[in-house]
């Protein structure tokens, strides 16, 4: 069924346009990667602060409130550019196990990030008072983001 959907999608005029105009995919991928740069750097800085490795001069709450909004800002652009790439090459993405793993990891990391931010908003000292949990959340988040980027690149090699 998904195969049928991919076949249908790849024959729509939008998809055919993306397939025919050769610069669209690399241009959209470039925007996608630049947004990945924003997300990865912000999440790395926040996660390393949660773990207690980077930016330790300032409290955890400062790192969380500094970096998370940039992620929420970049994610819609990532989603939009990602959808354009899917429309251009539906079966390359939708039938790809790395793509599915990437999406599953993304859901998990969004939940973690949302939770980290929410607890921080409720109580600025929340993560400072729970160093072990903060370190686990930070390490898990960083690991998931690295996994997401890795899956993203391996989609091209499946």
């Amino acid at each position, binding site marked *: 069924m998904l195969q049928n959907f991919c076949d249908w999608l790849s024959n729509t005029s939008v998809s055919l346009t993306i397939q025919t105009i050769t610069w669209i995919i*690399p241009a959209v991928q470039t925007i996608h990667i630049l947004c990945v740069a924003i997300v990865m750097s912000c999440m790395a800085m926040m996660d390393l602060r949660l773990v207690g490795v980077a930016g330790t001069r300032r409290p955890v709450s400062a790192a969380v409130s500094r970096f998370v909004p940039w992620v929420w800002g970049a994610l819609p652009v990532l989603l939009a550019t990602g959808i354009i790439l899917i429309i251009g090459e539906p079966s390359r993405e939708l039938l790809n196990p790395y793509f599915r793993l990437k999406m599953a990891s993304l859901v998990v990391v969004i939940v973690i990030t949302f939770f980290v931010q929410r607890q921080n908003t409720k109580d600025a000292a929340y993560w400072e008072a729970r160093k072990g949990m903060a370190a686990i959340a930070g390490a898990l988040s960083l690991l998931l983001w690295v996994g997401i980027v890795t899956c993203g*690149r391996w989609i091209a090699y499946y």
Partner: protein
Amino acid sequence: MGIPEFCAWLENTSFATAIRQSTWLFPAIETLHVLAIVIVVGSVTMLDLRLLNIAWRDRSIREIHEDVLPWTWASFAVAAIAGALLFSSSATKYYHNIPFRMKMALLVVVAINAAIFEFGIYRRVADSREGERIPVAAKVAGAAGIVLWIAVVACGRWIGFTK
């Protein structure tokens, strides 16, 4: 030995041959390259945005420079080594690739921009506090940094779409 001869020698080294012939080595090194680049670009942009007075205005430029740039440099080293390995696998092909040449030329400009900032402008703006005016030279360095890195990423992506 000229550059074409060097490329021919490089791609015949044992590690270059191994990368070229393996099914997973190239994507694995490329993944490392991408991971390192996104950290380089994102982290340096944090500083550039501060120079433009757009983000992180409540911290001094020195504080951001000290907190963020070590990660940028470490990631850049990883990106450069991974990139050199990727280059070695098909050195001659990349040497003749136009986006690759543009990327390398842009990196030279990035280096010049960074050097001008590090060895001159930085000392003047390092301790500027919130609300303080940032000199035009620093703003130009920040804006140039952002534009240049976007171009570097675009060229990098284009390499994969050209023969």
